[in-house]
């Protein structure tokens, strides 16, 4: 497997060979007459951080949500195409959608802790998978809180409502909660946009640590953040994928005029 972040050579996209985790082909998404995602074909490399960039309203969140079929929540969304995860088409497969979702942790723009205690927030996913033994739960909860670097701050107040935490802590709780269902993909939709700089940094650091074990897809608005952590970039504009490729290439040698304009900061 090549490591892309150190490769300074310009690699044409077609030659870009690396195990793929998510493969999307001809994905189209419409709400009524509104065409929100147009013929999206992208691939997400395994155990890397893939960043989705693009101006506001271009469909980044929608693309992310269609990856774990949260689009099912909106009955008037019409989704066609193929989304393969490990070569299994999740849009059309007969498997239970809840099993598909368990393989992906989701972090949203603002943290949304469930209306229960810190402990129960993390136990929630475990209980759904049928793990109910107290000893086991306590061990796992400690493990995931440590993994999200939250343990030291909350170990004495596990029974307090999750809403009593600060926003930054809540976001890390949401991360721990997502990790607790043992996913192999993390989907993150501007996970740092509501956080202060220090909390943001912590999340970024966490992602860089986690990418060895997880495939991370992250939406962001902040170009500098993308440059800091991205291995691979997908650039969208008005519902279409304009460019995708290794981060180095994207930032240093953009292929299209739109990308160049976006990097200059003249679109938004």
């Amino acid at each position: 497997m090549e490591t892309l972040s150190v490769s300074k050579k310009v690699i044409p996209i077609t030659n870009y060979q690396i195990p793929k985790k998510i493969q999307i082909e001809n994905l189209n998404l419409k709400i009524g007459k509104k065409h929100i995602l147009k013929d999206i074909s992208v691939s997400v490399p395994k155990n890397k951080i893939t960043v989705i960039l693009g101006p506001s309203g271009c469909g980044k969140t929608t693309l992310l949500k269609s990856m774990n079929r949260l689009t099912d929540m909106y009955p008037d969304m019409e989704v066609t195409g193929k989304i393969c995860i490990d070569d299994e088409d999740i849009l059309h497969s007969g498997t239970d959608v809840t099993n598909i979702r368990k393989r992906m942790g989701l972090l949203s723009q603002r943290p949304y802790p469930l209306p229960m205690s810190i402990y129960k927030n993390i136990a929630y996913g475990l209980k759904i998978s049928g793990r109910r033994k107290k000893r086991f739960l306590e061990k796992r909860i400690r493990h995931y809180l440590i993994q999200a670097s939250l343990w030291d701050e909350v170990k004495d107040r596990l029974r307090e409502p999750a809403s009593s935490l600060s926003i930054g802590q809540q976001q890390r709780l949401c991360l721990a909660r997502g990790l607790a269902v043992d996913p192999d993909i993390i989907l993150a939709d501007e996970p740092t946009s509501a956080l202060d700089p220090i909390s943001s940094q912590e999340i970024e650091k966490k992602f860089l640590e986690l990418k060895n074990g997880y495939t991370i897809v992250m939406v962001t608005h902040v170009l500098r953040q993308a440059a800091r952590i991205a291995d691979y970039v997908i650039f969208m504009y008005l519902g279409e994928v304009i460019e995708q490729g290794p981060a180095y290439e994207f930032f240093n040698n953009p292929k299209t005029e739109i990308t160049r304009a976006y990097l200059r900061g003249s679109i938004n």
Partner: protein
Amino acid sequence: MKGIILSRKIKNKLNATWMTIWTVFIFFIPLLLTAGLILKSSILLKDHSFFNLVTSSIWKPLSGEFGFLPFIISSLLVTVLALLIAGPVCLLSAIHLTQYANRYILQIMQPVIDILAGLPSVIYGVWGIIIIVPFISEKIAPLFGIQTSGYTIISGALVLSVMIIPFILNILLDIFNAIPKELQEASLSLGASQWYTIKFVLIKKAFPGVVSAMGLGLSRAFGETIAVLMVVGNVASIPKGIFQPGYPLPALIANNYGEMLSIPLYDSALMLAALFLLILVIAFNLISRLLIIRYEKRFA
């Protein structure tokens, strides 16, 4: 030119003044109401102890005996029963409409709720007499081996429950719609099914709001007059069951306004009944609304 600007400014000032006066005036309405009713009912309280009035069940205005107990119990019975009927229907329907229903059902339900909410009390009363009263006397009461005219507590409660359904449902819809979609998405993305999410996340989050919606419904039901009066039977004794006639407070006031001037203290007693109503309704409203506000703050 300067003159025009000046006159515009003066006009502006003047407007601000009289608008302030209007606004302050509205603050005074509830105070005026309460003060007026207290003033009137204090005449009765002068030589009747409040405790006796509320616990006595003898209502003989001609001999100066005013026991409010039958009316209070009737009121409580009718409203609580109405809420027990309407509450679950509203809750289930609200979850259905916000979580499961497709666009077509929503498009039908919105005007249905609007029209139900707009129908006058007296129309519900007429409907109660046409449908509910015979239904109770011919179908339901015989099931329990009871003979009744159908003008009973349960008829009042049924009519009342239908009347408060649109009211409670509208509040519940607002409450469920105010819950961010992302919260449900968070639960779904952890592998929960939609039902699991509704049961353990949505209802929990909405719980304080649901309680206040029910409280508001209860207070709305408490003051409802004409419709209940038309079907509840109006007999001034403590009802011994739900198939017995009752006599709620609003009906008491409405039914006796004609005679109240000819009997001493009668008007004062009826104003005391109005005061009861006012205080109970305001108290319930206040508690429920404070609860809703606190609950909304948690989302901000």
